[in-house]
C-alpha cells in the first residue's frame, strides 16, 4: 500500500510524458512548417511584390497593386488594374464555383444511391464494392486521358453510343467545344469521386441500428418516408463531413481540367489560371496574388465549417 505513487509522483510522470510528447511532435511540426506554413507566407508575401519567375529575389514591394490599383490618366480617366478587375480571373472564379456546386451536389445524390444499394444485403455485394473502387484507384491524369479518348469527337465511343441510341444527331466535340467542355469535366469528376462519397456515406449508414428499420416495417411505414424521416437525419453528420471534404477538394481542382480541356476558357479554374500566370505567362507575383485569393476563399469555408458544425475533431469530448 505504501508503495502507491504519491500525488507529486503522478505529476512528474505526467510532466515526463508531456516533455516526451513535445519531442515526438517536434519533427512533424518542423516538417509542416517547412512545407506548409513557410511557403504559404512566402506566397502571400510574393503577392505584394513584382517578383518574376526568373529573378525570385529581385522583387520590389508594390502593395496591393497585384490585387487592385487605380491610376488616373492625364486625360482625367481612371483606370483600374489588378486581378480583382480582371475578367479572366472572375471567369475562373465563376467556373470553379459552378463546378464545385454541381459536382458535389450530383456526387452526393449518386453517392447516396450507391451507398443505399451497398447497404442492402444481396449476393455479390463484395464484387460491386470492388467494382466501384476502380474509378477511385485510377490516377486522375489517367482517367482524364481515358475519358478524353472516350469523348473524342471523331472516334470516341460516347458519341458512337449516343448516335446509335439516337440521343444526338451529329458528333459532339465534347472537350473542345465551349458549350460542352464543362459537362465533360463534370462527367469525369463525378465518375471518379462518387465512389469516395458512397464509401463515406456507407460508413454512416452502417452505424444506423437495423432494428429501427425493423420497427418501421412492423408499423407499416412506407420505406421512402423511413428514409427521409429516420435514415437521413441519422446519417446527416457523416454526410456533412463527406460534403465538406468534397467541396474543399473541388474548389482546388487542377489536374483534371488541365489535362482534359487544356486552354479552354469555359473550364479554367482558379488553380489553373493562377499556375498559368505564375509559370507560363511569367507573371509570378500576379499568380501568387490569385492563389492567395483562392486560399482565402477556402480558409473562409473551413472556418465557417468549424464554426457552424462545432464538430468535435479531437474525438475526446470529455475534455
Amino acid at each position, binding site marked *: 500500500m505504501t508503495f502507491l505513487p504519491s500525488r507529486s509522483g503522478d505529476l512528474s510522470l505526467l510532466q515526463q510524458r508531456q516533455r516526451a510528447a513535445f519531442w515526438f511532435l517536434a519533427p512533424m511540426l518542423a516538417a509542416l512548417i517547412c512545407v506548409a506554413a513557410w511557403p504559404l507566407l512566402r506566397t502571400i508575401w510574393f503577392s505584394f511584390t513584382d517578383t518574376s519567375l526568373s529573378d525570385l529575389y529581385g522583387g520590389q514591394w508594390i502593395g496591393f497593386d497585384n490585387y487592385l490599383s487605380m491610376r488616373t490618366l492625364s486625360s482625367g480617366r481612371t483606370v483600374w488594374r489588378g486581378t480583382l478587375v480582371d475578367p479572366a480571373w472572375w471567369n475562373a472564379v465563376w467556373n470553379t464555383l459552378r463546378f464545385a456546386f454541381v459536382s458535389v451536389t450530383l456526387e452526393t445524390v449518386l453517392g447516396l444511391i450507391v451507398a443505399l444499394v451497398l447497404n442492402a444485403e444481396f449476393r455479390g455485394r463484395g464484387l460491386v464494392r470492388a467494382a466501384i473502387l476502380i474509378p477511385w484507384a485510377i490516377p486522375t491524369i489517367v482517367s482524364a486521358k481515358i475519358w478524353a479518348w472516350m469523348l473524342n469527337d471523331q472516334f470516341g465511343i460516347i458519341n458512337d453510343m449516343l448516335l446509335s441510341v439516337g440521343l444526338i444527331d451529329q458528333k459532339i466535340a465534347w472537350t473542345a467545344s465551349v458549350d460542352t467542355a464543362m459537362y465533360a469535366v463534370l462527367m469525369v469528376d463525378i465518375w471518379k469521386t462518387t465512389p469516395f462519397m458512397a464509401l463515406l456515406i456507407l460508413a454512416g449508414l452502417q452505424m444506423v441500428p437495423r432494428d429501427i428499420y425493423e420497427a418501421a416495417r412492423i408499423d407499416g411505414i412506407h420505406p421512402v418516408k423511413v428514409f427521409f424521416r429516420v435514415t437521413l437525419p441519422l446519417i446527416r453528420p457523416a454526410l456533412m463531413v463527406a460534403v465538406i471534404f468534397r467541396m474543399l477538394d473541388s474548389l482546388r481542382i487542377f489536374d483534371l481540367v488541365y489535362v482534359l480541356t487544356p486552354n479552354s476558357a469555359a473550364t479554367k479554374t482558379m488553380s489553373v489560371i493562377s499556375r498559368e500566370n*505564375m509559370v507560363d505567362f511569367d507573371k509570378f507575383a500576379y499568380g501568387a496574388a490569385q*492563389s492567395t485569393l483562392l486560399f482565402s476563399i477556402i480558409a473562409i469555408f473551413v472556418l465557417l465549417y468549424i464554426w457552424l458544425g462545432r464538430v468535435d475533431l479531437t474525438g475526446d469530448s470529455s475534455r
Partner: protein
Amino acid sequence: MTMPQPIKTLAFYALVAVIVLFSVFPFYYAIVTSFATGTALFEVSYWPKVFDLSNYNAVLGGRNFGRSILNSLFIASTTVICALFLAVTASYALARVHFRGRGLLMMTILAVSMFPQIAVLAGLFELIRFLGIFNTPWAMILSYTIFTLPFTVWVLTTFMRDLPVEIEEAAIVDGATPWIIITRVFLPLLWPALVTTGLLAFIGAWNEFLFALTFTSSETTRTVPVAIGLLSGASQQEIPWGPIMAASVIVTVPLVLLVLIFQRKIVAGLTAGGVKG
C-alpha cells in the same frame, strides 16, 4: 410496396448492373483500346477484336517511360517512409498524452490537409530553388509531405486512440519510457494501420500532378502522371491514343490490384481519416 416482389428485385439488380457497368467500363475500354493499332484504333469496338502488343512495346521501348516509372516508385516510397516515420511518434503524442492545445493542433493538421496546393506553389518553388533540388526527385519528396503527413498523422491518431489503455498502463508500471512504449508495445499492434495509411499515402503520391509538373523540367525526371499528361505526337492533331492507353493500363493495373487486395483496409482507412487519399 405497390410493386410485386419479382419486379422490385429485378429493378434492384438492374440498378446494381448500371453501377457496376458505369464504374468498370472506362477502364475496360482503355484496355481494349490499348491492344488496337492502326485502323483498328479508329473503329469503335465494344469487344476486344485484335490483340496487338505494339502499343506496349512503343511505350516501354521508349527509354523515358521506364525512367518515369522508376522515378514515381522512388518518390512515392520515400515519401511514404518519411511520412510514416514522422507520423508514428507524433500520433502517439496526439492520441495518448494530454497537453494543452492538443485540440488546436489537431485542427491545424486537418486544415493543412485541406490546403489548396496552389497556395504554397510559389513559396515552395522558391524553397526548392534555394535548396538546389529543382528538377530532382527530392523536390517532389519534399513537397508531397504537405499532403501525406497530415493525412497519416490524422489516421494513425484515430487508430492509436482506439488501442486499449491497459496495455500502456502495464508498460508504464514496468518502467517503460514513451519511446519504448511506441517501438515495443504500439508498433507491433499498429501494423495493419501502418499498411493502410502507407498504401493510401503511396497512392496519393503516385497520382500527384501539380507539383510534379511544376518542379520538373526534363523528360528524365518526370513522374508517371506528368509523362502521361504530356505524352504527345508529332503534331497537335496526332495524339498517340494507342500508346497513351497502353501507358495508362500499365500504371493503373498494379494500383487496381493493390486496392482490390486491400479493399477492406482501405475502406476502413478512408472512413477513419475522412480525408481523400
